């Protein structure tokens, strides 16, 4: 739920409740005041009747006025405590309509006799007044509510605008790009504070990121040095004299392990560099030439397990780093060789907008997370970084790399113009 909706809801609900209560109080109070006034009028009338009977020693005529009716009745009962105001109906003789009325029943003494006097007044005017007041109140309530809705919708939206701008800039913030979140000019203190905090946080994040990055750089640098020492010491050890065959095998294993370690390290560094867009030497060149060179380079490896290579190469101009193109081809062709079986085949097909490398393979099972780091089949001798690097390279240049398994063959397709 949006903040403004929530706020609107609460606001309107409270306004409505308050206005209803106000309306009720208004109604009751005004009703009470008007009844009070009617009662006073009725008392004045009663007074007049008493004075009249005292002066003239007779009852006034049971007069019928437009808004007032008086009637007398002889009363024989106990007269104490007979004086009460009640609501009643009032028959308007002019319109012959029944209207709400207010009645005073009182007693009048005349010549030792007790008369019951009933004075009735129409309440229609006061009722009308109450109704008008109520309508006005209701009208004002409605107008107020509508005004509130509009104010909330438009003013609040406008007030929150800097907030949304800041939010969007935060969404677009990329730590690797090292750019600042721009300040949004606003006269509102809270947003200014938010702005400030966001910028401070971004600065801190960038600082931490920079430190972490330089730590990684230094760590990798420092790790390479002992690795270089191990390697050189191994080379030196090898020169020192004669070793037995088992010792030779041990040495070979150590060589392999250090070789793997340094390659692993270089691959991770490469991945980090591609991710951070640190490889810049983009140039135009024909991929066909590079693939032809690669095929020559890999010749021995094809021959070693009797692979049959089929290549159909068309000219294909690409715009990317030659260094990365080299790595991409190494990885894809290298995989096609590594995961192939004896006397299998490899097909390389290059056309204007795609490169397809397909090969027969030992492994039929396809891993879903083929392009993830360190994902590799159990018997693979690789590090499981080759395809992750290939994918990164493709992403960097907006290429698309797809893996498919069709008819006993593994297909890797690089689409050069996936954006179009």
């Amino acid at each position, binding site marked *: 739920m949006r903040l403004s909706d929530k706020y609107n809801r609460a606001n309107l609900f409270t306004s409505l409740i308050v206005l209803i209560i106000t309306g009720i109080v208004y109604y009751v109070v005004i009703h009470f005041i008007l009844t009070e006034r009617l009662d006073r009028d009725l008392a004045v009338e009663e007074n007049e009747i008493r004075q009249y009977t005292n002066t003239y020693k007779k009852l006034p005529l049971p007069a019928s006025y437009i808004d007032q009716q008086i009637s007398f009745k002889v009363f024989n009962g106990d007269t104490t405590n007979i004086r009460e105001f009640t609501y009643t109906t009032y028959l308007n003789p002019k319109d012959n309509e029944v209207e709400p009325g207010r009645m005073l029943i009182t007693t009048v003494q005349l010549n030792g006799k007790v008369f019951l006097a009933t004075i009735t007044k129409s309440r229609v005017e006061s009722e009308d007044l109450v109704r008008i007041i109520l309508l006005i109140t209701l009208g004002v309530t409605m107008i107020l509510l509508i005004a509130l809705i509009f104010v909330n919708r438009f003013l609040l939206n406008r007030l929150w605008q800097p907030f949304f701008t800041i939010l969007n800039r935060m969404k677009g913030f990329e730590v690797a790009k090292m750019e600042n979140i721009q300040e949004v000019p606003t006269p509102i203190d809270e947003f200014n504070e938010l702005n400030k905090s966001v910028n401070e946080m971004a600065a801190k994040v960038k600082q931490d990121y920079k430190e972490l990055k330089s730590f990684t750089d230094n760590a990798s640098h420092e790790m390479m040095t002992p690795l270089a020492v191990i390697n050189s010491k191994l080379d030196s050890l090898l020169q020192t004299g004669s070793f037995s*065959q088992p010792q030779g095998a041990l040495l070979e294993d150590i060589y392999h392990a250090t070789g793997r370690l340094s390659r692993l390290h*270089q691959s991770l560094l490469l991945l980090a560099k591609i991710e951070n867009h640190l490889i810049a030497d983009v140039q135009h060149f024909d991929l066909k030439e590079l693939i032809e060179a690669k095929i020559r380079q890999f010749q021995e490896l094809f021959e*070693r397990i009797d692979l049959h290579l089929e290549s159909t190469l068309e000219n294909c101009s690409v715009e990317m780093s030659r260094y990365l193109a080299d790595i991409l081809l190494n990885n894809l062709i290298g995989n096609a060789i590594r995961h192939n079986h004896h006397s299998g085949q490899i097909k390389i097909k290059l056309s204007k907008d795609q490169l397809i490398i397909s090969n027969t393979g030992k492994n039929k099972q396809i891993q879903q997370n083929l392009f993830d780091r360190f994902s590799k089949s159990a018997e693979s001798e690789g590090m499981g970084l080759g395809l992750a690097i290939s994918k990164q390279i493709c992403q960097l240049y907006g290429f698309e790399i797809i893996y498919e398994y069709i008819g006993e063959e593994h297909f890797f397709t690089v689409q050069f113009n996936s954006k179009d």
Partner: protein
Amino acid sequence: MKILIIEDEQGLLESILAYFTGEGNICEYATDFIQASEKIALYNYDCILLDLGLPGGEGLVLLDKIKKMKKRDGVLIISARHSLDDRLAGLDLGADDYLVKPFHLSELKARVSAIVRRKNFEGDNVIVFNEIRVDVSAMNVYVKEKQVFLTKKEFDLLVYFLSNKHKVVTKNAMAEHLWGDEMDLSDDFDFIYTHVKNLKKKLTEAGGQDYLRSVYGIGYKFGDL
């Protein structure tokens, strides 16, 4: 040849010294920036091995100094920094080659030898070993003055062996030298065997001695028996 090794890592320095000393090579070393500056100013070397991260200063500054002194010393940068920028910066400043740590000593030796040959013999870039004569720039090989025809890889292999005479060269190092270290292939380098076998056959058939022998299955050694 006379070589200056500028390297602050003691272990690596010792290995390089041990590998390069002998066969008429004179090796000196410096372990920090000041020591290296002094040596560079005082003496001439055929080749300087320069580590980039040095205590007391940047290796690239030293390189700049060498070039400003108009010295003809060959410079090979050895660095743990695998960044393209550093490599380009080094080569732009006039370094002859750039080798990333970790490296094989045999690779280092081959590169240093190549630099020294280029510097010292200018057009006439020839290696002679007993009855074998290799014209590196023309890519010709003669055994007892009779030309032997080698493939590109066999030729590279021969030059590599000649730069590492009497040393055990691992198959790993040979593979990386011939195919590049970014190939990331299986650790099974047996396919090198074919090239070594062919090279051996061509040399002996031309009347050369058999100088190549396999060592513990790890690698090969080229040299007098």
